[in-house]
């Protein structure tokens, strides 16, 4: 299986969790990788997240050396979790703002480790 296909499979698994509305991988080296679908009804918002997340990387790189692991921001009824695989790559998940974030985070962490392993194998 090609690297991107393996990553897509991990993202598809994450998306099957009830509270995960959308997810993607974004990074300087990987580009943006998304599953085949999204549960997010607001497609304009989804496109905005896909198109603009990478713009945060110059700031992320500054903070990464100080141990930046995750960024959270609330967007209306949604919460966006950016979880960093390295200073150039982030796994992004969109969940309802009232979801049980703790439970989702455990699976985000598992997905992040799986993706890290896939990327590591390719290097």
């Amino acid at each position, binding site marked *: 299986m090609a690297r991107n296909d393996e990553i897509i499979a991990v993202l598809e698994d994450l998306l099957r969790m009830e509270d995960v509305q959308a997810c993607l991988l974004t990074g300087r080296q990987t580009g943006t990788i998304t599953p085949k679908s999204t549960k997010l009804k607001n497609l304009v918002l989804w496109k905005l997240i896909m198109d603009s997340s990478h713009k945060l990387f110059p700031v992320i790189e500054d903070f990464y050396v100080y141990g930046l692991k995750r960024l959270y921001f609330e967007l209306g009824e949604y919460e966006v979790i950016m979880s960093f695989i390295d200073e150039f790559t982030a796994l992004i998940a969109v969940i309802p703002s009232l979801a049980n974030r*703790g*439970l989702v985070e*455990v699976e985000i962490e598992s997905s992040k480790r799986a993706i890290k392993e896939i990327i590591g194998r390719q290097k």
Partner: protein
Amino acid sequence: MKDLKVCVATSRQWKGMEVAAELWSKIKKESPDPKFILLFATIDYKDEFKEILHRLASEFSNAQLVGGSVAGFINQDGCFTRGVTALAVDYPNMDVAVGVGRNTKRNPEKAGSECARQIKEGLKSSKLKNSFLFSFISGLEIPKMPGAGSSVIKSGIMTKLVKGGMGVSQFLMQKSVGREEDVLDQITKELPDFGMIHGSTIDNVKVGKNYQFCGKEVLTNAAVCLGIRTNMNFDSGFGNGAKPDTKFNITEISKNNQIVSRINGQPAPREFSRLLKKPEDLLFDEKRFIKIFPYFPCGMYQGDRLLLRAFGLVMSDSMLTMSRMHKGDIFTVSITGKNMIECVKETLSPMKKPEFGFATECAIRLMTLGSYIDKVRDNMKAFFKEKPFLVIYVSGEALKKPNHEYFYMNESFAVTTFRR
């Protein structure tokens, strides 16, 4: 203990058939002829439960299989809030029996009694001296009532309707508080010489519906117990990392000891927010309460042990706890994330070197710690080394030593380790 073969297996496949095949192959390799299998799955697999149970129970027809739905689990493989796990034990010096009690929310005493009777009957010819019980009982299920979708009900009329409706829904639909303690009262009364670890089954903490497993059967509103007699020894302990702060008094509480109406003689919600020094409207915000209630449990003493109780529902004049409280001295408590993790190490450290371990931990701790739950796993791994262990995330946990009364807890970590 060469003849003891324990396997804790994990599957992250999606299809029931594939899950069962993966678990089967791991168990067959490490614990080929198990006496019992404890099986737990997250609610994502609810449409696959039957298939998984049917296949595993058929393949391991000599083994007793019990378990249920959980919010997540930890083992040597990792931390998961989606997946299926099994603990299988193959050991010749062990007799096992299963007890099932039904309609736990309608008639918990009868369910407990029925469970205990089956365990007694199943183990009556056993000559082995140490008795232990694994208990899994259906936990809290919140009924959907029109106009009461939140964990905070501010309207007085709606409060009356919900309080009245709880009894009705409890009896007719078996939706409401779990009544696990009423079941356990009966079980422990009839099996006093058994040690015990208990977990209340739950879904993904949406508290809609949870399931229990027994053999090939998928049950709801049931108690399933696995009783064992063995020559193995066991150690038990629990912790929560909480420290008591301000003392207060519950001055009015419902007959079932779960609806607190008055604290220090004042309406409970108002007085509780005053004690916590938090504005009432902020603490009991209709939208946010479901996310913040785990941070404000209270504590009560049983002997010298502080047991936590969380308020899961706030009404205009009263508050519903997830398990029984008593009138008298109660404390607000403080818990740091660090202490939540440290208490696992503290609980395990006095215990002797184990062969394997099983723990039940409150799903609220999982909600609160999130991905930092892997620190709990680090502590488990540091203690168990390469030995197998399984932690399941549940809505209530209990622990009992033989010939002692049991402790029922929320927001805690309870563990039993088995050794020669």
